[in-house]
């Protein structure tokens, strides 16, 4: 694939200094993410998948190697508001309506009032929450809240969407539905997505590229380019092709574990 490179890490290392001595969270991470890719990071807890995403978002500072986002440092990318970040919890402000929550980054970034209103209704429609603009977060279910938080990350012009286990706290039925929606949304918006998960089916279903990670020290065990077509109904999960990829992911996870 000859695509424009959006995120690139070379020999990335990160060691946390803790009271119990240094913790090697990331070791020699080499990864390229092209424009419009959907990249999942999967691995057991402590494998550094969230840390890696946070380095890309300039929320953690690497101790070695380089990371480039949009050909600049993560810090410059953050200053330029190059990405939207979706956390594990929706993190909506209880004192703002859904519309008000989505407006929040727009207010901070200085969009005009008219533009704010227009963008809010656009992204609400994108996540199928039209009509909920005036509701408060507590009036929405967990899945709807998480959709609102995705809408918030989509509201401003960032080509990159970084998601840290956004559906981790939701039940499987809601999760399936949101996964379908997320694919449709990715199709429509052409964003580059980095997605942290610990669910193998989720990773295989969503991704064009799956990064399998293993712990102690956190490192890449395998990078799998998905051969699944772009059009993915939920039933695709029963096809041999899907099962083969899922199997390879599982192998990678096991291997990483026995080595560690």
């Amino acid at each position, binding site marked *: 694939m000859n695509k424009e490179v959006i995120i690139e890490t070379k020999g990335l290392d990160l060691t946390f200094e803790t009271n119990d001595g240094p913790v090697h969270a990331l070791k020699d991470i080499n990864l390229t993410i092209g424009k419009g890719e959907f990249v999942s990071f999967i691995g057991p807890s402590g494998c550094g998948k969230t840390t890696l995403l946070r380095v890309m978002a300039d*929320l953690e500072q690497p101790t070695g190697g380089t990371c480039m986002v949009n050909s600049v440092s993560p810090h410059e990318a953050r200053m330029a508001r190059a990405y*939207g*970040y979706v*956390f594990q919890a929706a993190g909506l402000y*209880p*004192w703002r309506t859904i519309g008000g929550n989505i407006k929040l*980054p727009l207010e*901070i970034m200085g969009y005009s009032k008219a533009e704010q209103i227009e963008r809010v209704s656009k992204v609400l429609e994108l996540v199928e929450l039209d009509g909920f603009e005036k509701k408060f977060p507590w009036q929405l279910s967990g899945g709807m809240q998480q959709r609102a938080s995705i809408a918030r990350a989509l509201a401003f012009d960032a080509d990159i969407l970084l998601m840290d286990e956004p559906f981790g706290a939701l039940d499987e039925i809601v999760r399936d539905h949101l996964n379908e929606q997320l694919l449709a949304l990715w199709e429509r918006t052409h964003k580059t997505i980095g997605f942290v998960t610990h669910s193998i089916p989720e990773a295989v279903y969503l991704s064009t590229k799956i990064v399998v990670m293993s712990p102690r020290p956190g490192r890449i065990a395998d990078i799998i380019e998905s051969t699944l077509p772009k059009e993915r109904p939920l039933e695709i999960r029963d096809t041999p092709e899907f099962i083969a990829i899922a199997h390879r992911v599982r192998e990678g996870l096991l291997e990483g574990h026995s080595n560690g």
Partner: protein
Amino acid sequence: MRSFAPVLTVVGAIFVIWYGAAVALNSAWAYDKAKRADVSLSFTEMVADTMVQKKPLLPAPHQVAVEIYKTTVQKKITSKRSLIWHGWITLSATLLGFAMGTGLGILLAVGIVYSRAMDMSVMPWVITSQTIPILAVAPMIIVVLNAVGVSGLLPKAIISMYLSFFPVVVGMVKGLRAPDAMQMDQMRTWNTSKAETFWKLRLPSSMPYLFPSLKIAMAASLVGAIVGELPTGAVAGLGARLLAGSYYGQTIQIWSALISAAILAAILVALIGVLQNITLRRMGMLR
């Protein structure tokens, strides 16, 4: 109105205890009078006497109620014998002191949250300030300010401020620190300035913490204003009524000033409660 029955029960119990105590405490004086007049008292006569004494050890509730009625409704509010006049003097100092204390408290809290140096240096002094008995400090504040020509409302308000800033500092420090790491990270991802993080995240997060602090501060402020009126020589205010009453053994006057102060405090705290409900409801934090 389910909540009425328990409230009335408690109020009723208080009245029963109050009347019982009044009979018990005032009976000695009733018997003493009877002995000097060389008459013997039956129980009912004794009880009747304990309810109508001029300077009882403990005035009965209805005596206090009558006194309050006489000194509020039946007096012109410009009269120096009007409890409303005295109450207003105390209230104005309370409100000014409360406003100053709230302002100071919020400013200190912002400083403490944003500056590590202030966190380390100011907080211990804030706590120390509250360990000093206000009764010892109040006369000094009054005398010192009087020496530089400041008297009347302001010295009392300063004492109120001294008592009321503390709960506001403690509550607001907690409230401004209420946003969790994720919410702060979220702000970082949007490259949000410190000022905007304050106005859009920290300050709204602190509101549920601010109001309980304000209630305590308001009550403390009233105590401060009353304490501030004591060393001035009992010129005006509810504190002055308390002091004058104790000079002349006017127990009914003391108790009526006391009950008035309590009613005033209850009204002020209830007003903050209303404000709290309106604010939190408009912020969508009350369901």
